[in-house]
């Protein structure tokens, strides 16, 4: 299996803005630390984590928008700096904001960006505009947020990209628009050996589409594995109050007590150590991420 994208030991430090200690205005520093993962060709990888975990930093690093302190990134088997032009011609990008001149129309967007892509598909772009009900003569600033995201997606899908990089593309979209976008991505994946790196904190989107999950928290990769393995590793457990002793409670991640009982996340391997009266079910992505992120932040 070929890896379309590989990160090895990627480190990016954002130094503290005010280096003086105990200063109330001191900004917290952030470090993307020793990030390594692979995205195999033909699969969708979900990059999950809460806001500020480092998802956008990873994506910006891949796109050479940030200067790395350490590590290397290869895309299509080539170093992302040495073959920057060739790589970018084969990547489609959707960010959670538009990056076109607000006074441009979709027609003007095409005139501006198409010459940069040798494989620009005019027909595909036209079809996508029709499919998304985007008026090609309407100015971008007059489009809704959902329409702007669809326009950016149309551009990303119209130059025969082999890799789509999506940074929070569904944030701010209503459920119908989100579902439409996911449908488009499914169509894209059916077109051959294509791959998607999909960053989001709306994990329900990923459950519908992701083959791999990379979970990042506080700048560190906590897990990067096939989605089924990631989800199969954890169970959500529930039960009445007083049925767990203190040792058993410590086995649970994100243990919470409420008026009628408790719930928490547990690794599959540890499940036999709980009493049989506990109800266990496979964890969904949302709950698993919330509990795991909570553990990292010492919320327990």
């Amino acid at each position, binding site marked *: 299996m070929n890896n379309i994208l590989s990160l090895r030991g990627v480190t990016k430090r954002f130094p503290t803005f005010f280096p003086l200690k105990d200063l109330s205005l001191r900004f917290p520093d952030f470090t993307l630390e020793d990030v390594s993962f692979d995205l195999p060709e033909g699969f969708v990888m979900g990059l999950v984590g809460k806001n500020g975990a480092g998802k956008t930093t990873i994506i*910006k690093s891949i*796109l*050479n*928008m*940030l*200067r790395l302190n350490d590590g290397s990134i290869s895309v299509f088997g080539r170093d992302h700096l040495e073959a*920057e*032009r*060739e790589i*970018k*011609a084969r*990547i489609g*990008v959707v*960010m959670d*904001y*538009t*990056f*076109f*001149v*607000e*006074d*441009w129309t979709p027609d*003007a967007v095409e*005139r*501006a*960006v198409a*010459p*940069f*892509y040798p494989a620009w598909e005019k027909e595909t772009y036209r079809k996508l505009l029709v499919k998304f009900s985007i008026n090609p003569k309407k100015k971008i600033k007059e489009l809704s947020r959902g329409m702007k995201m669809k326009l950016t997606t149309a551009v990303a899908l119209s130059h025969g990209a082999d890799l789509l990089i999506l940074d929070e593309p569904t944030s701010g979209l209503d459920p119908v628009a989100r579902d439409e976008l996911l449908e488009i991505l499914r169509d894209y994946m059916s077109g051959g050996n294509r791959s998607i790196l999909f960053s989001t904190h709306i994990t329900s989107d990923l459950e519908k589409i992701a083959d791999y999950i990379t979970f990042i928290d506080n700048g560190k990769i906590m897990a990067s594995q096939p989605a089924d393995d990631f989800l199969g590793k954890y169970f959500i457990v529930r039960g009445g109050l007083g049925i767990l002793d203190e040792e058993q409670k410590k086995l649970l991640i994100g243990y919470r007590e409420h008026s009628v009982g408790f719930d928490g996340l547990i690794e599959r391997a540890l499940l036999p150590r709980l009493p049989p009266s506990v109800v266990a079910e496979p964890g969904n992505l949302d709950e698993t991420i919330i509990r795991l992120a909570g553990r990292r932040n010492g919320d327990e």
Partner: protein
Amino acid sequence: MNRIALFILLGFRSMPVMAKILMPFFSIAMMLMFSFEASPKASMAWFAGLMSALFIAQPFAIAEKNRLETLHAMLSLTRNDVVKAKYLCFICVLAVIMLPPLLLKPVFSPNNEAVYFLITDTFLVASFVTALLYPLFFKIGYGKTGAVISLVGIIFFVILIASRSLPGFIAFFALLISATLPVKIALGLILVCLSYMLSLKIYRNKDL
């Protein structure tokens, strides 16, 4: 088409329609102004140079307003391409503005040598302003550059006045204006080359 040429075209496309319409008019106005001017005036060169530099800075303003740095990062371009294109754009715009008066001089004012002085002075002023501004645009962006330049400019003149160096500073400028044409052109080119190298270093290491 070459990627750098495409990028220059992208910068032109991103400019507001009004700026695109005004540009040829500005060129014609300069052409007429220079062609019929009998004696070189530094103030005209300053005006023309500053206006040229303002025109050239437009794509930076548009790019910042519309987050085009992200678009540039998406396209099949390197950071070197971006910097190179911005400076080439400066040369192209100056050429568009200054070449017509130069070429039409033999027709309109064959005996008026002042045109050469005005053109080279304009080139020198535009080069100086651009050489100063571009690295700042790349480092801190268009919006902050205005504030920084104003502040630094005020501090600079306060220091000049306080240290009684203003006459010396004015004399230095007078010396520049009285320099020969090749010296002015060479000085302008040196300033632009130094600025280009600095901008390249800044933009290569910038986090977008």
